């Protein structure tokens, strides 16, 4: 079953509306002109650290530690990124190096 063009456009508009609601809501609820509640200010200082960790886990959610290659390529590549980054402290080098190691591992080794 495929939608008509207008049904497709409405579906896309709903996807836009839902996404934008989640992006704009904090800024609408807590505008610059008003002091946000202290709890929100507090969350605004701790969440930046936690969200980076969440994104790491989120981007690895497809990894299967119990089956297949057991997530070994991911683990090895992340160790390589950490070592590379502590050694050279170059963001581009760490990202490119880690990705190259990962691609080599899954295409050639595993």
């Amino acid at each position: 079953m495929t939608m008509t063009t207008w049904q497709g456009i409405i579906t896309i508009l709903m996807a836009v509306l839902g996404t934008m609601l989640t992006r704009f809501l904090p800024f609408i609820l807590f505008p610059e002109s008003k002091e946000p509640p202290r709890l929100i200010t507090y969350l605004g200082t701790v969440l930046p650290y936690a969200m980076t960790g969440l994104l790491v886990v989120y981007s690895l959610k497809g990894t299967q530690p119990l089956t297949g290659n057991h997530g070994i390529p991911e683990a090895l590549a992340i160790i390589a990124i950490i070592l590379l980054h502590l050694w050279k402290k170059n963001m581009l080098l760490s990202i490119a190096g880690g990705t190259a190691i990962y691609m080599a591992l899954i295409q050639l080794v595993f």
Partner: protein
Amino acid sequence: MAPNTRHRRQAIAKAFTTALPRTLPVCISFFFLAMSYGVLMGTRGYSFLWPMCMSTFIYTGSMEFVTVDLLVSAFNPLAALMLAIMLGTRHLFYGISMLGRFTNMGAKKPYLIFSLCDETFAIDNGTTIPTTVDRGWFYLFVALLNQLSWVSGATLGGIIGGRITFSTTGLDFVMTAMFVVIFIDQWMTTTHKSHMAALTGIAIPTICLSILGPDNFMIPSLIAMLIMFIALRPYLEDLNTTTTPTNTDTTDSTDTPTTKENHTR
């Protein structure tokens, strides 16, 4: 007003050259990932205008891929809306994290909020902007460069359609690599109280993921983190006074003089 204009141009150029190397890994992977999405739309018989518009206006990768499936199923606008809100719950947390840093952004602000996807947030959040660089223009260039590569990839993919097949196996690991690097940078530049917040962000989603699986762990993770941080508040409350690595304040040199950023209390 000539010296003023030159000064402004220099400030914009400097923000651009600061933003470009930070966004480059995202731009490259966005281009190819969006291309695979555009190709998917093309093979389903949609003209390139569809992936072009969807990547421009929905602009969150996960929801765009999901919408491809929605378009070939029964018409249910309310379900589409609910799905977009659920998939986008994490944006609420990005917004709260950026409330303080998106102050005094003027006309740029609506676009900065509109374009705050995972990767743009990660860069904005993880970069300590030098005091000599204009914050507003930096954030704008990060957002623009990322979205331009995403939309151009999706459009090109839609034009190519099923005519060319190519493999991006392993390329999406660029995102993981970038998030890990930003995590290390944040870790190295902060004290042990921030480490506790960072570890919470690793531990709780990992636990939720292992119990609930990849499709259902995000919203429970966000709620559990919220509860955890409220419980840890007496301990972490003074975090922003002991360390302020990401809240670098610069006096805006190009626009009208801005008031000192004050979002701490």
